């Protein structure tokens, strides 16, 4: 690990200030991806600004027709939250299936979505549930947030403070875990909302995406059988030693059906 200066401010404004003017500074949330990359010397930063002491970034609350989760809320907290389990049980399932207990006790929702790993679970939750990313500067629709491989719509120095999930009528998440990393080889969030059905897929491509062909079919008939004829095009999908693009394409329909079954349960 290369040397860096470590900061742990108590106030969001201080965190923003510490980032200001330091092009090589980086925010530290749960550190579950950042710390390994530092230890492997794959990344180097002048400053790490740890957000763990900022109370405003913690916690889960129900706000009308939505659940708002503070950016520094740990996966294990989301998985165990009565508010989440009651309002959006699929989100609790998703959080409870991330990594392993060690990762779930350290990793945070804000860190996960800011990192935008192509195989992370949360991006499917954000996009599939139509969530909004709240930062210290603005609100960004989940739709507009994930731009590509490890690439998101945050400006330099912009800090995610919370994620607002509208409560769907029904939702389900199903994940085919990577045999080694337990990231998603394919993870599918299916949500039935007042505005229609949303299907978001993680793990298969460079970034999370919506499966619009399935959404249309499910708008007409919200059942696993509605996806029977759907063939997903493997064109741009990832291929690696664990799964080919062809297999991922197939797994998307299987996991989507399982997500629907979970939503209907």
């Amino acid at each position: 690990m290369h040397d860096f200066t470590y900061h742990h401010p108590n106030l969001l404004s201080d965190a923003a200030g510490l980032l200001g003017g330091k092009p090589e500074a980086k925010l530290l949330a749960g550190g579950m991806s950042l710390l390994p990359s530092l230890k492997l010397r794959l990344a180097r930063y002048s400053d790490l600004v740890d957000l763990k002491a900022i109370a405003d970034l913690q916690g889960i609350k129900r706000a009308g027709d939505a659940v708002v989760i503070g950016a520094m809320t740990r996966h294990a907290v989301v998985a165990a939250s009565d508010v989440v389990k009651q309002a959006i049980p699929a989100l609790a399932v998703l959080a409870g299936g991330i990594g392993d207990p060690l990762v779930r006790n350290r990793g945070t929702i804000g860190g996960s979505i800011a990192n935008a790993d192509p195989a992370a679970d949360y991006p499917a939750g954000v996009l599939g549930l139509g969530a909004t990313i709240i930062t210290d500067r603005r609100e960004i629709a989940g739709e507009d947030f994930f731009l590509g491989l490890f690439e998101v719509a945050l400006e330099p120095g912009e800090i995610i403070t919370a994620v607002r999930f509208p409560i769907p009528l029904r939702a389900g998440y199903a994940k085919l875990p990577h045999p080694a990393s337990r990231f998603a080889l394919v993870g599918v969030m299916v949500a039935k909302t007042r505005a229609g059905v949303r299907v978001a897929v993680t793990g298969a491509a460079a970034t999370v995406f919506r499966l619009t062909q399935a959404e249309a079919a499910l708008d007409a008939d919200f059942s696993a059988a509605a996806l029977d004829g759907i063939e997903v095009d493997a064109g741009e999908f990832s291929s690696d030693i664990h799964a080919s693009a062809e297999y991922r394409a197939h797994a998307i329909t299987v996991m989507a059906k399982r997500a629907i079954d979970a939503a209907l349960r």
Partner: protein
Amino acid sequence: MHAPATSTRIGQPVPRKEDLRLITGKGRYTDDMNLDGQAYAVMVRSPHAHALIRSIDSAEAQAVPGVLAVLTGFDFIEDKLNPIPNKTFSMHPAEMPLINFDGTPAFNVSDYPLPADKARFVGEAIAMVVAETIAAAKDGADRVVIDYEPLPCVTYTVDAASPDAVRVRDEHDNICIDAQVGDAEATAAAFRSAAHVARIKTWVPRVAGSPMEPRAAVGDFDAKTGRYTIYTCSGSTLRLRRDIAIVLNVPEPHVRLVIRDVGGNFGTRGAIFPEQPLVGWAARRVGRPVKWTSERSEALLSDYQGRDLAVEAELALDKDGTFLAIRGSNVGNLGSHTGNFSMVQKGVEIMSSIYRMPTAHFRARAVLSHTAPTRPYRSSGRPEVIFVMERLIDLAARESGLDRVELRRRNLILEAELPYKNPFGMVYDSGAYHKVMERTLELADWRGFAERKAEARKRGKYRGIGVANYVDTATGIPREKAELTVHANGSVDVVIGTVSNGQGHETSFAQLINEWLGVPIDKVRLITGDTDIVTVGGGTHSGRGMRLGSIVIWHASNKIIERGKQVVGLLLQKSPGEIAFSNGLFVAAVGGQSMTLSEVAGAVTSRTDLPPELRGPLMAECDETINDAGFPYGCHVSEVEIDPDLGNVEIIRHTTVDDVGRAVNPLIIHGQTHGGIAQGVGQALLEHCFYDASSGQLLSGSFMDYAMPRADVLPFFTTEISEVPSTTHPLGMRPAGEGGTTPALGVVINAIVDALSDFGVTHMEMPATPERIWRAIRGKPQRSRIVPDAVEQQISLT
């Protein structure tokens, strides 16, 4: 599970006395060793699978604050140090010898721990940076400029054996040994008369041993005496000291080797590894102790790896299903060094397993490739060939229409036929092969399977069951020595040449002493791993730890008792023949007077009225060369369920019966069997050291890509121990532990193929990943991107 131990004698499931120490962080592993003034070494490893080293510029690295030295292969040669010696074959007299078919010697070349000519695999250490801290050493390592000229490479086993393959060594082609064993003519005749022939072409891929404790070594050099001390983790002490002394070019007594706790081995540290002599050399160069500890990604790149055997084999049967002959060709991948040919020596000699096989013929080749060196990995060579044999039987059952269990029954060697010489010349000692298989089938409820299968199908799952028998050949270094000293306080010191790598020797060896000398196990101190104390011994490998350790401890214990009887006889004015010994007490047959073992130990060191030959510490030693091999055997049954939508496999049950001859500690044996099963299942379903064929890059370089088996992918196992005494061991013991792994590959794949039989699937390559199974179900080629195309190529049988 067992009832709790009722004593601490042989046969009792005594909880391991070392566990509390080890699981509370009080173990003394190599990285726990810290010496005053210690510096740290970091290796600069090759990013190329094959490249000329044109030059190494270390000036910038030397300038990094804290860097003490940058050492390369050029410095190593300049210091007149030696390459690493290889012991390519087992010379054990019970083992099948391998010789080149044309009579030429096998190709064996010693590699330098830091090569100066070429890099031959991704991850090979090319330079070593020594610094005040690990961070400074890493900064230095980043600045070592190595001018490489990348060259084409070959990684896959069958490709490497091709005559026009890129050579790993300029002076020789990649084939280091090309042997023919068995009787070609008789085998060909048997095949001509066969009613059925089952065929398989397969590749048992390479896996990583992945012990919990990474490799490590701390080197110290005393300039006054010219003596090195190396603290490290290994399976052996004296052989390793000899090898380190050879590399450092000093007489053996100039090296002291110290091995304390070792957190797993499985062959990854079964032989000298480059960093062990390097830290000694570095300590001499910088005048300070030097420590090196591997990181996990470094371990995946540069630990000795296991398996990697390509096989083509055929089994001939008559119309009733009686085996007539087996023939084929095995090609083992040595990686970049000619380290050890065991995978085609041990990996051929029991090709016919414990089945009656009138004749056989095999070609055995070991080839170099631009990959990390391989070494014997848990049950060296045997899991590979048992996999092939057990797959062949299932294929033969399908080919002939005979029941696969019945086929095994018909051909398993009968008790009355033992000892049995197999067609490769291996002589199996004793065993109840039929009884063990029947017991396993019964424990696994083989008969009730059809019902469970039907029930699973209702849930949309495809359930399969498989059975596999196995045998292991346990040989290893034949010489072992024990030195026992009984102290007046009642404690016993046992000095022995074995090293526990996690097998629980502190407990199981103490149980032997408890049995024979009546000493409580907490008063037994096992002293191993320090060459200043241990003078003879072969270490822990090839199922030799308890097998040979028990014999020398037993004989030394008897010598203690004999001397004790003489002393007690004299003191009680009886003849030694009138003194009996049991439970730590010497008792006169007439009169009933008694002395404890500790009283005798006190008497011989304190009384002056004893004759000189009985005076002095109550100690005895036994140094023996034991040339007998051991043949543990057993049976596994595995039951799986497959999700046809995704190809996911769930192991529902896994049942084993292992014959260990005589169990010293059943609790430890069950534990080792559990771990062994996990390793076998890991290979069958998950693990694979994946080298990209064109670049030679390792694509499974971290646990994010190298899939280890975890507790949640395994069921609770049913493991049972059978105890048919071995006739090649004076106490009846056979080795234990490896039996968990040996048949696990075959039995899991047999179960999967059974589950998929409705889809017409006849074989699955390993690892049987969900995608491969999904492809097999749909009649697509299994390989996709996962298997090199070359696996489809023909392996020549001639």
